[in-house]
């Protein structure tokens, strides 16, 4: 059995050149077979091998010819089950490919499988997956972060060289930080969302996860750019690999006070400051700044995201695809399907979102959240008019233990009709979990790009440094990240058992 190891795209291609695409893909499938982390919901075993063989046979001049990639399970893949880690989509096989998948396939990529996630991307730990929690390769008792926990964990564990996640409120950056890999949330509109199963449309973007900054740029060059099928995707030429220059002299860094708020882990704070001082040594300058509306961002984010989610998830009614429970009429069938198919966190968000959009509450919650969003955006516009990038911890603490943030309590449910009362377990307060998103959600509210990369270890767990840039200025944050990577050894650290 081959040993799991971190391989960059050029290394993978070298391997393919020395052996074959089939051999390389088979070795990844072998590693996946012996996985301890439950990173995949679906492994595309036969499909991947067949695809690798086909590329071996016919040749391919794409930049990802034969390169295996793992795809988050909320990105539609033609012919490969796509569940969003939900029971309600069990067995759903999309008849079409997402835009990003079309691009990847056009460049010769091989899809290894679909990675585990929080159900419908609602979570920060991958614990809400119907298919079990993914484990953090650095410590199997800890969460990998979320919601793209599978995508980050399989890259960290050497079960895929690169992967795609999606980031609605930090869902690429959080697991990248927890798993010690690099993850980018591109500018809103930078990548087509066509085929990404919506959680909160106005906030989310597909983003790459890799073991190095250079691979991030390579994937972005493949998947970025305009797609007429997504009205929110912007027409703009991009050549991300051109930004891979080891030079940050003159770079102005803003360090927002509010991102080091009370409750931040001391080790994380130290690691991030060390990184900022390293940038200073490399020729950048930094200053403390204030982004006063940060503290309202979390509430605004959750109301907007849940409101959109309540509508986005309405289509899962058992009529056309996925799970169907039987009922005496359509409404009963749909209700039963949704009751049985959605997990607790998804139901909570649908209910809260429905409430926030309801007549009488719409103005008080949804509209107010939109106003706060505007204020948060203005914070970013103002801050980024004085500095080139912002730096802050991605997450306020390293990966937490599985179950640590979800205390369950027993609740007695009494029904108004004749149904018997029943005891159920519910999460006492999801707020602990929501609060961990405090440094990532403001970025989604404003739409700017942000990259998370490792900047040290605390008690053997990775810490993520978040570098935030101006709208469509991925090149500056990539240049900063690339320079940091070239001048430090943080990206040489691997979880135990991975070379």
């Amino acid at each position: 059995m081959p040993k799991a190891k971190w391989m960059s795209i050029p290394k993978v291609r070298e391997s393919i050149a020395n052996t074959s695409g089939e051999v390389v893909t088979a070795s990844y499938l072998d590693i996946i077979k012996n996985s301890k982390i439950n990173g995949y919901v679906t492994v595309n075993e036969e499909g991947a091998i067949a695809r690798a063989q086909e590329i071996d046979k016919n040749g391919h001049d794409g930049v990802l010819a034969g390169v295996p990639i793992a795809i988050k399970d909320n990105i539609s893949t033609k012919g490969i089950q796509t569940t969003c880690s939900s029971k309600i989509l069990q067995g759903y096989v999309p008849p079409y490919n997402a835009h990003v998948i079309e691009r990847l396939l056009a460049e010769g990529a091989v899809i290894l499988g679909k990675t585990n996630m929080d159900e419908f991307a609602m979570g920060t730990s991958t614990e809400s997956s119907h298919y079990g929690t993914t484990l953090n390769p650095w410590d199997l008792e800890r969460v990998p972060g979320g919601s793209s926990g599978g995508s980050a964990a399989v890259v960290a564990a050497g079960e895929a060289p690169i992967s795609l996640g999606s980031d609605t409120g930090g869902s690429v950056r959080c697991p990248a930080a927890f798993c010690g890999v690099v993850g980018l949330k591109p500018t809103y509109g930078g990548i087509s969302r066509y085929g990404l199963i919506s959680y909160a449309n106005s906030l989310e973007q597909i983003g790459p996860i890799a073991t190095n900054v250079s691979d991030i740029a390579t994937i972005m060059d493949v998947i970025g750019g305009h797609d007429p099928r997504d009205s929110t995707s912007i027409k703009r030429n991009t050549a991300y690999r051109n930004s891979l220059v080891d030079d940050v002299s003159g770079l102005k860094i803003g360090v927002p006070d509010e991102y080091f708020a009370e409750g931040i882990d001391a080790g994380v704070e130290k690691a991030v400051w060390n990184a900022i001082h390293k940038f200073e040594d490399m020729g950048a300058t930094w200053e403390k700044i204030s982004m006063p509306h940060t503290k309202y961002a979390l509430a605004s984010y959750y109301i907007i995201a849940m409101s959109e989610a309540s509508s986005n998830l309405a289509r899962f009614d058992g009529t056309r695809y996925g799970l169907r429970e039987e009922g005496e009429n359509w409404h009963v069938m749909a209700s039963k399907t949704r009751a049985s198919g959605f997990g607790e966190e998804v139901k909570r968000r649908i209910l809260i979102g429905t409430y926030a959009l309801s007549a009488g509450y719409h103005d008080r919650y949804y509209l107010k959240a939109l106003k706060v969003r505007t204020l948060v955006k203005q914070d970013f516009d103002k801050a980024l008019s004085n500095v080139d990038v912002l730096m802050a911890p991605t997450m306020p603490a390293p990966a937490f233990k599985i179950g640590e943030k979800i205390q369950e309590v027993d609740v007695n449910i009494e029904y108004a009709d004749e149904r018997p009362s029943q005891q159920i377990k519910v999460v006492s307060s999801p707020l602990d979990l929501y609060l961990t998103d405090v440094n990532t959600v403001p970025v989604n509210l404003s739409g700017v790009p942000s990259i998370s990369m490792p900047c040290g270890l605390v008690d053997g767990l990775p810490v993520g440094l978040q570098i935030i840039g101006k709208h469509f200025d991925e090149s500056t944050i990539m240049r900063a990240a690339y320079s940091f990577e070239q001048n430090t050894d943080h990206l040489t650290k691997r979880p135990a058992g991975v070379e």
Partner: protein
Amino acid sequence: MVYDNPDGVMIGLEIHVQLNKLNTKIFCGCSTKYHEAGPNTHVCPVCLGLPGALPVINEKAVESAMKIGLALNCEIVHQTQFHRKNYYYPDLPKGFQTTQYDYPIAGEGRVVIEGEDGEHVVRITRAHMEEDPGRLVHIGTIEKSRGTLIDYNRSGMALIEVVTEPDMRSPKEARRFLDKLRNILEYLDVFDSSLEGAMRVDANISIGGGSRAEVKNISSHKGAERALLFEIIRQKNLLRRGGTVVLETRHFDEARGVTISLRTKEEEHDYRYFPEPDLVPMRVADRTARILGTLPELPDAKRERFIAEYGMIDMHAKALTSGIRIADFYEDVASRIDAKTCTPWVADVLKGELNYRDLTIESFTVDDIVGIIEMVVSDKITEKSAVEVIRTILDSGGHPLDIVKEKGLLKVEDDVVSRAVLKVINENEVAVADYLGGKEQSLNFLVGQVMKKTRGRADAREAREMVLESLNQ
């Protein structure tokens, strides 16, 4: 005369117009030509609402919507936006309908109709764009269905919903409004009214200032009139028995001609409207001038022009502009035959014969009517024969000349008639003497003899004149 609206009837309409002349649906590239196709054959991830699919606005649909707004004299909004209307129904594949809410593409407007007491203004509240849901096919009736099938071919068809103020005072006015609206839409060439589901009407009706009932699912103009007549009787009966009309939604059962309660206001949905995040707001104001320039001449303007240009009376102008196709037909005829002559032939005779047979102008050709009128003008056939030719063509087809020959309708030459006149005068001395002696009836006898000798082919009026002329010499 002023219409006093004795029952205090107020009718407002919401009309869904399917833009079925567009090539593609409103948010995807699926073809709109599904009417002859099998179920669920004109669908894609977008109009099936598959997870991850995103809508893209059909710019042609936006232009059609703007044309309609402008033709209804509506304000065109500066920036327009789509919203989601959230509700669950099996024909709605996304669990919400993408529609417009507080930024409809067209705002307030007005349409003038032929009301109970002359010209009557119906105010337009708004006109907005939305997507059509799929179609449910109930096995059996809606109340007692054994099963339901869903066809998503219709899902995602572009609709324009036109909403009026409650300005119509009788079912007849409602029907007139619907006829006028359809006429305008046909002038704009944005829809084909002959296709199933092209125009669907919901009608709000109240009497005497009471609560209104909304009648849904009316698929024809005649149906609208019938549903509203039924509602007036139902509401009046209810009030007479001491009941009150409640705010409710009712379903029109076209087969039985009755309305049935569907749900009361308490059961109404909270649609939880919010802006569609997948479609960005659209600035349309800068297109208004260009689109205004592309608008065809509309019925009211055409009617005025017909009066001015062809010197016809208003009644004829109204009849000839009641549909774009009859208007075009008339203008073709008028380009070949002097307007004064051809107008009554098209507006009165031909249109009358068509209406009598429930036919449209497509059942007749310009060449045929021109040929017929020319024969009348050149005195080859009588006016009465011309009407007979028109009727024959409509009833059993054929060419005007063939029909004229077959039926022996050609008028006989004058000298044949004058020879007959001379012969009759010579052969009937007694009658001639009687006439000259003051016995008027004898003239009729003489004319009758002439007609007999020409076997009826002479024009009776002309024959009479010729007899008189000979007698007076």
